[in-house]
């Protein structure tokens, strides 16, 4: 690796860190808004929309987004209160101990396939008369090895060979911040650290509610950590790797983890929600019982860090879910060299696409999938009631844990069977996996079409005019819609 190579790698690493951290931070902030407006839409309310930004006589409300900014600003101006009997050092340290593991987690999450800077563009010659020409040291060379005068190479975006390209001078760049070989084990190690911050926050606050919340948080997170890890063991057995990017590549070649590990998907989802301490597992911060649990005593931006890291945890857990079970950056049938719809060994449709566009499309897809899972988590949050603490523990130890162990056993048997199966069965499995990819693509297209059609269909209304005020409103053309609605 020469110095310019190192420089390029360093530059790309900085860009990757910037991309991921900015995404997690901004989506974390956005999720507070999503939570408010989405809950409002679910519960037939309008939701917060009054924060206003004025330029002259123009008012901008941005659909209530400004409330998030106003909240952040407010937290900076609040008094940073420390209870008199609190442990000052630990009390100040705890918010950072909660925040740090969440930020570190995103280092091993791949958001795109390996790219090769030199394979993005290349020089090519278009020879006169249809003779194929090759490029050699910036000049066009014909089949005999003679330099053709008058024809200059042009820079094009070619389609690269699928699965790895020869490196020219710079090594391939993996689109993940730290391509660690321990992969998912690093994730478990870091995800487990969150409980330390919560426990320290509760202990150092010198408050009964905080201590209760911290105990609950510790108990809950340790219990669900087990399921979180064991539910992924089955996935690791099938993918044959602990590297997250290799897992995604396996899913691109075969089928999404959701279809090979449906039980693990549900177990992991439940455990991830419990790890984020969100409803229905929000016992550590149950408002109706513990004020706000382990961070009851916190104020100002320290409270903001707790609040914010919770939303960031939602983003990182969604990223993990997408990576392991929902195909990561993969789009069904989209390969690094273009789109090719294959069923078993038959190719239905195939077209080449420039590698750079495929990469951009895949990165965008990864972030879109993360957003969809985040929004789905918010749906779960606003639909379910909270568990009782004994129910929570029973669910964790008596249902999720045995189920994840059984899942490992069954997965092991199935993997053994599939490996020793006949070629015909293997081919059948391949067709089934391709069909699952096709069904996924069809489902997404169908949902998008349904959404567009629903957006374009006007709705029939049935006026109900009873009482003089309704009569009066009806006569004057209804209560006028205000600009404030958005």
């Amino acid at each position: 690796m020469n110095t310019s190579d190192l420089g390029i790698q360093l530059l790309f690493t900085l860009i990757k860190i910037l991309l991921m951290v900015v995404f997690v931070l901004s989506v974390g902030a956005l999720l507070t808004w999503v939570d408010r407006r989405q809950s409002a839409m679910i519960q037939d309310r309008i939701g917060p929309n009054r924060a206003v930004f004025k330029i002259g006589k123009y008012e901008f409300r941005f659909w209530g987004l400004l409330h998030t900014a106003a909240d952040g600003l407010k937290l900076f101006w609040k008094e940073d209160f420390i209870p008199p009997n609190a442990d000052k050092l630990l009390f100040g340290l705890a918010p950072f101990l909660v925040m740090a593991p969440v930020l570190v987690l995103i280092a091993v999450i791949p958001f795109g396939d390996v790219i090769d800077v030199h394979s993005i563009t290349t020089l090519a010659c278009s020879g006169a008369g249809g003779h194929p020409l090759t490029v050699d040291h910036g000049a066009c060379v014909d089949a005999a090895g003679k330099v053709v005068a008058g024809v200059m190479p042009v820079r094009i975006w070619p389609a690269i060979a699928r699965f790895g390209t020869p490196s020219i001078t710079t090594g391939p760049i993996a689109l993940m911040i730290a391509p660690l070989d321990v992969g998912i084990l690093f994730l478990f190690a870091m995800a487990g650290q969150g409980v330390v911050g919560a426990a320290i926050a509760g202990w150092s606050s010198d408050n009964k509610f905080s201590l209760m919340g911290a105990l609950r948080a510790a108990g809950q997170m340790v219990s669900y950590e087990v399921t979180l890890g064991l539910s992924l063991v089955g996935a690791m057995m099938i993918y044959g790797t602990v590297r997250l990017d290799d897992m995604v590549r396996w899913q691109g070649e075969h089928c999404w983890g959701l279809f090979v590990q449906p039980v693990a998907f549900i177990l992991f989802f439940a455990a991830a929600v419990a790890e984020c301490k969100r409803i229905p597992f929000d016992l550590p911060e149950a408002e109706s019982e513990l004020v706000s649990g382990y961070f009851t005593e916190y104020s100002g931006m320290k409270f903001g860090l707790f609040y914010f890291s919770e939303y960031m945890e939602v983003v990182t857990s969604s990223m993990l879910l997408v990576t392991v079970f929902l195909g990561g950056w993969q789009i069904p049938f989209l390969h690094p060299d273009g789109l090719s719809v294959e069923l078993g060994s038959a190719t239905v449709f195939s077209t080449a696409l420039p590698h750079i566009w495929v990469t951009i499309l895949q990165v965008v897809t990864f972030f879109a999938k993360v957003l969809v899972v985040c929004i789905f988590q918010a749906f779960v949050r606003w639909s379910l009631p909270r568990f009782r603490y004994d129910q929570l523990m029973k669910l964790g130890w008596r249902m999720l844990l045995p189920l994840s162990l059984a899942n490992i056993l069954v997965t092991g048997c199935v993997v053994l069977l599939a490996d020793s199966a006949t070629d015909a069965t293997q081919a059948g499995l391949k067709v089934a996996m391709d069909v699952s990819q096709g069904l996924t693509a069809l489902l997404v297209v169908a949902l998008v079409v349904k959404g567009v059609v629903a957006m374009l269909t006007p709705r029939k209304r049935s006026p109900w005019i009873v009482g003089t005020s309704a009569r009066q409103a009806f006569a004057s053309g209804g209560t006028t819609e205000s600009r404030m609605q958005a």
Partner: protein
Amino acid sequence: MNAFPKKPASPPNAVVVTPEDRSFLVQSYIPEVSRGVAISMKHFFANTREMLRGERPDPVTERLDPGISTISYPEQKRPYPERFRGVHRLTVRMDGKSPRCVACLCCSTACPAQCISIEAGEYPEGDPRHGYERFPVQFVIDELRCIFCGFCVEACPCDAIRMDTGVHAPPYDSRDQFIYHEDALIGFTASDGTRATANPRHEPGDPTFPGITREKIEH
């Protein structure tokens, strides 16, 4: 006395309560959770679609329809019913500026909250109305003290005071601002924005004047 009386027989119309459904599907939470999330999604997508299309149900005329029927208050207002008793107004004579009030003090007498204060004045000597009627030099209503019973409107013999403005007393930041004087009271219009009345006033000297004075009563 039997310590354990026999359980009385169930009435013939008793509803048999089926025991809680504790089947595996219910116990595994998954189908029930999916149903709950599906209901949330239905509401979310329908309401978001209506917001984006600007098709929210009208909060008053379509209030039974599904959807968000919130009234965004200062911008949107629920119309008051026709007979709503709002802030008072003083009706005016045909000239369009002087109050019809003859300062008879019927309203302030009828007022149970004693929120009306009238200072009566006599028309000058030679005016056809001198000795026939008086006029309010000062007509004051304390809207904070008023209980909006409408007795003043009932008591008025001249249709001079009405509560048909369709406006509730607005929130002010000091008590003085709730004390309305005659100029403010004359300034209000009815809820339809006009000062039209079905009771034309016949002034002394008009051809339509019935000709009743204190000195001479003839029909």
